[in-house]
């Protein structure tokens, strides 16, 4: 049912190793992209690797935590009421365009 709206994600080369599930792809295209594909919202734009690298300077885990708890103008879970931790991680990898191996950096003990 949720595939009834067209999915149009913009994924960078580094993120190609992550294959989004249909549910993740829907979330990415219909919830995440509504802000992150529009620069006027002031959200970091999908695939702006330089900006995402700056934001992940303290480790990839910071991006995941900020997505879940919210930070600045970013609402908690990006307003996704159903997203799981694994889904958030995959969405952040595709969103940022960072190498999935970076997910091992800065993991909390």
């Amino acid at each position, binding site marked *: 049912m949720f595939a009834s709206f067209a999915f149009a994600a913009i994924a960078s080369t580094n993120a190609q190793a992550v294959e989004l599930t249909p549910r993740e792809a829907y979330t990415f295209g219909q919830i995440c992209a509504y802000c992150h594909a529009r620069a006027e919202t002031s959200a970091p734009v999908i695939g702006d690797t330089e900006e995402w690298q700056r934001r992940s300077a303290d480790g990839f885990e910071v991006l995941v935590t900020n997505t879940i708890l919210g930070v600045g103008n970013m609402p908690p879970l990006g307003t996704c009421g159903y*997203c799981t*931790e694994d889904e958030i991680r995959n969405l952040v990898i595709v969103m940022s365009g960072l190498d999935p191996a970076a997910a091992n950096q800065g993991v909390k003990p």
Partner: protein
Amino acid sequence: MINRRKLIKNSVLGTLGASAAVGLTGCGKGSMGPDQSLGYDFTTGKPLPWMNWAKNQGCQPAHRIAPQSEDELLSIMTSGNGGTIRPVGAGHSFSGVVPTEGTLLSTDLLNGIISVDQEQNIVEVWSGTRLHQLGPALDAYGQALVNLPDINYQTIAGAISTSTHGSGVNMGSLSSMIDELTIATPSGELLTCNGKNNVELFHAARCGLGALGVITRVKMRTVPAYSLIQKTAVEPLDDILDQIEFEKASNRNFEFLAFPHTSMALVVRTNEVDSSAPIISSGEEDPTAIFQIRDAYQQLGVLPLVGEFAYQKIIDAAAGGAATVKSGPSYTVLTHDRVVPFREMEYTVPAELGPACLKEILATIVEKNIPVIFPIEYRYTKKDDIWLSMFSQQDGCSISIHQFADEDFVEYFAQIEPILRKYNGRPHWGKLHTLGPQELSDLYPHWQDFLAMRESIDPNQQLVNSHLAQIFGLGELTNA
């Protein structure tokens, strides 16, 4: 919304330079209030917490579920889990309608258009469809909603469950656009109601706070797609209020945002325009511009005479700027980005009492020297026949009080809420208020009817959380 007006931003920045030159001192952000963090944390591998958009409501639900069909939803409702189930949309409510330690049920994946009747102007849509998805989806069928709220992140179910509205004296809330809805009850029934069948449920469920079941699909009245032109300008508030009846009658959508501690307001006038006309965008929008105004305010402080005079000059300067103009398909003009986190209280007073109520609020802010800069939003909505709608049986004027999310809203709202109540205001169900069952009963002629409907559908209070128990007068819950 003022926070998207670059002319304001420019004026503020320009005036700030002048202010610094004359050596004005300021009050710091630290004096404005405490840190209001809810304290939720994330540990990898542990269940995720949920918080609303404004981060003033949160919970640690035991289960988070997103059904993809009505059958799946019904099986969840009757699973025998026995715990509380609360539906959640986009989490834009400031009130505690969502939090539960039981099951958080997202409607997001019940999503998309089911059918469109272009002759009868009716669309059937799944309840989790977000407003920002619906606009372009309807446009593809040559259809549109007659009105929209200022923001479009919400789901249909969440928006109608709280009587979410835009502004327009001849237009009702989103709830009033519903011709039929289908709702999954805790007993596992799928009930369809409209103006002919299950009529009382129809009156209750179009603004049901998620207390009567989980809405799965709705039929909404639409209109042929249309285009709008929206003009904004900063003007003297007294002039606006002096000609308020003219403004209401001569604009399709009319609203304004009054600047506390000044005599000015940002007026937003929206009217239909030929769809073949070129799209206009004059004046760049900036969703974060209000931070510049706050910076100005904090640097100027709220010093008697000097501070207020300088702040007034900032807003006056904005009045000299060119008005912004925006046109295009209705769904692109009526809604705006609102990315600055804030907290909000909104009451709807009888339409004819709006000007007097607003004047008293603004006078109180000055008299008590309340340190607030966030503009006060002022809108009109047509009456309806929905039991718990803020516009039930009376045309309404909605007055919205905002405060930045990182500043203390409690004392400010507490000083203004009695004024809104004095004018027989009804609180927005998705926004902050302090009313209990007795006060709410006095405001809504069908309050007891709604409570009886809720009891008949959900006698075991499966859909009741702490907030709903408080406003319905159901006592303290032990497992909400």
